């Protein structure tokens, strides 16, 4: 599998680290809503199809990427710097 890093270009999967589901939103740090924190820490959607996820180009520029990948075909639908998506 190749992931097209916006900085480095298409690179081999072996250079990347999976960094988790990108569909989650971290609750407000002051929040004591345990169900919201539970959802953030433990609950995952396990999509069969297009899935938003973080990949770090750990063996490259080290940027975290927000990737939309089909879990059925491994096709990468979109890639952006996580910093830009998180803003």
């Amino acid at each position, binding site marked *: *599998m*190749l992931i097209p890093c916006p900085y480095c270009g*298409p690179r*081999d999967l072996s250079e990347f*680290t999976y*960094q988790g589901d*990108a569909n989650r939103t*971290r*609750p407000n*740090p*002051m*929040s*004591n809503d*345990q169900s919201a*924190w539970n959802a*953030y*820490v*433990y609950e995952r959607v396990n999509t069969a199809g297009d899935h938003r996820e*973080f990949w*770090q180009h*750990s063996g490259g520029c*080290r*940027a*975290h990427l*927000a990737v939309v990948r089909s879990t059925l*075909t*491994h096709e990468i639908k979109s890639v952006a*710097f*996580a*910093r*830009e998506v*998180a*803003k």
Partner: protein
Amino acid sequence: MSPRRAHNGGRIDRSTTLRFTFDGTAMTGHAGDTLASALLANGISVVGRSFKYHRPRGVFSAGIEEPNALVTVIKGKLREPNIPATQIELYDGLAVESQNRFPSLAFDFGAANGLAGNLFAAGFYYKTFMGPVAGPLKGTRFWMFCEHFIRRAAGLGRAGHEPDTDRYEKMYGFCDVLVVGSGPSGLMAAKHAAATGKKVFLAEQEPEFGGSLRWKSAAIDGRPAADWVAATLADLAALPNVTLLPRTTVWGYYDDNALGALERVADHKAHAALGEPRQRHWTIRAKDVVLATGAFERPIVFPGNDRPGIMLAAAAARYATEFGVLPGERIAIFANNDSAYEAALALKDAGAEIAAIIDVRAGVSIAARELAREAGGELLLGYAVTNTSGARRLREIEVQAFADGKVKDGATRAFAVDCLAVSGGWSPAIHLASQAGHAPQWDEALQAFLPPAPTQPWTGAGAFTGAYSTSAALGDDIAVSEPEIEYEPAPVFEIRPTGKKSGKAFVDLQHDVTASDIRLAHREGFQSVEHLKRYTTLGMATDQGKSSNVPGLAIMAAARGLPIPEVGTTRFRPPFSAVSLGALAADRHGHFKPERLTPMHDWHVARGARMYAAGLWYRPMIYGTGGETVEQAYVREAKAVRASVGIVDVSTLGKIAVQGPDAAELLDRVYTNLFSTLPVDKARYGLMLREEGIAFDDGTTWRLGEHDFLMTTTTANAGKVMQHLEHYLDCVWPDLRVHVTSVTDEWAGAAVAGPNARHVLEACVEGTAVDNDALPFMGIVRGEIAGAPVMICRLSFSGELAYEVYCGAGHGQHVWDALMNAGQQFDIVPYGLEALGTLRIEKGHVTGAEIDGRTSPRDLYLDWMLSKKKPYVGSAMVDREGLVAADRVRLVGIVALEDRPLQGGAHIVERLGEEPRGSIGHITAFCFSPALGKYIALALVKGGKARHGQRAFVSDPVRNRYGPVEIVSHHFFDPEGSRMHG
């Protein structure tokens, strides 16, 4: 009669004689021979014993699909089993052994299995070795008991026990077009792509390029096919944009057109050249792929079809034409298609006598009739081979009339032959296409699965697409002269004589799966292809059923009364053919695997340090001074630290530069305690949690400037902490202006600890004072040691007065030497990980053994570090019900009440009877404490502090260590910390 070398012909170099041994017997062959062709040339008929029945087997094919002729190659002490003799190039000094025979190939005890008849039918093992429902060998225990003996009797070659000393390497290749296969269509594809200037890789699994053109009779552009191949290859080789890869098997097709390939660089040599790997594993990224992988000939299933001397027709022709070897003197052909007629003529031309051509079809093409006439021998149309005989080698075949898919009752005819060349049609080699495509499509006319629609950018060419003729492979622009035969076979896969008891008819020769096994599977309900495969093991041997899959499927289809495509086919998975583990591991294994060394590594080794692998790092465990045990050494080192002064290399600690105006804010968010209040030139101990409130890592962080921090992490978690910070900065708090950079390798670190530590620094540090005022606990100063800039922080892991001295890594040894010199008057002692561990256990400091991914800060009595003033990663969940439960295991100290060592992982139990009961926790770290004069340990025990003073027991069944212990505070030594503040 035996196979023999033909008097002339072939592409072997008859002027070069190569010596080799087979089961210790010396033989010779020629350059250009494979082991298989050389064995045939030496008259060897039986090359192995079959998997279950130990039947004698001979060479069956001439290629990678070989099911029978598997041998073990011996190089020195190394044994590589299960290599097809057809894939071994002969070299001078080659030594091989046959397999699965005891005591010898000629006389085999296991052949008695054959006499046991249907005992070994499909599912035999499952049914027989289920064991009784009760008793010591109930159920699968019986199987486990018997398995050892069965595996010894049934099986393939035996692997060696010596470590593999060969060199393997990896290579990444990038090209515009990868052409897989160098037969006529592959060569044309490479030629066309190269002409457009594209970067082309041409991979051929055999040593020579040309594929079928190396043995087919076709003439191209008016000259022999082999001459055309040579000219085309010379053209390709001269182009700078073409890379030729002989002996390279493309074995896997992965996402984004990445293909795995194995190049056998030196397998065909007695010794690899200097620096040359034995095998090179390629990962090839190709923009486009041309699959020109050809087709495999299929056998026909009939009683007695496994006798040595029976082989695929095209293979027989190839031995005659390419290797100048006659597989028999008097040969019969048995076919359901025209292609075998070409083989008949090739064999005749090489000097064999064609006794008969037996064809299940009632009528054949004019071209085939013409070929039959030229080849000589009787042409029996509408006939089939119904039995064979011959003890160690084929002597005779029986033939009966055949029509409408059935053997006709009536007279049999016998032919005395020593070779039977069989062709049951062709199956395109769609393995790679299946890995990168949809389901393959059945073609009724060709009676074969054709390549599926691609899911990746590849195209097919030649026989791979079902276009079997040379002219179709080369295209319209090239004049080809070849017989106009018809490749469409009659839909006949199995010959089942009626009425009489007939011999076994094998479908999968390598795993000894017979036609009746398939029908048994059908009767017992294992009818889907996937069940059939697993129940009978059809197609699961090292050849992966390259020649047996389609006949097996056809027999199941017939049993179910369905057309073949409705029964389906299994998906081909990588690897296409065997790939050695050595090639996959390559430099990840052995002495080229990556390792990390500190700047003082060579000094440690020179001082007799026993080095210990900590992740990829190497750290001194103890410094051995002749004759000491490990315990004696670390006790000596730890004592010296408490008595005077010691020095330890701490360069492996993870170090991260945290820089920027929001650096303090980031630290406040990731550590449980506050860092924004830390003054410049001060350090603070910090604890990090994961989001779920579990302890993650600890370490000190130094404030070097308003916006400039140096974070230290444990050695093991350096990479994880770095990723943790990067993840939050990129994905959660992109607004923070902070840069993090790994500077682990920038700094060498030495910890100087002990009552005399300050005196050592005073003796060598310049440019700064190091007294208590200038350098209080957790203070930082900068100065020089022996001219090298250093940064010194007063902090303690050992509980003694201690300093960490950091300098540029390239100055590490220089500074270390200066510290050793300065320490000489105080008898400074270098200490290793064992002493370091001992000192910290005595102090009750936690490390990765306690921060094990399951413990919360409360479990470790680190609640005092949990700030109430701010949120931090983990703060929302650290107070969850489960993490504050009363029965959690918490940190305690353990003292052995007998003078015997404790061990990590041992259980702490409440009762110690005949069977220890009631585990309340386990030991995480242990040592002999020189300070206490006892064996002590840290442990995680239910109840923690509440158990202080209680008696319990250690239970360590693995190491047979039981005995009484006392649970105490984990602060064994100097709990007030007076020594380090002194």
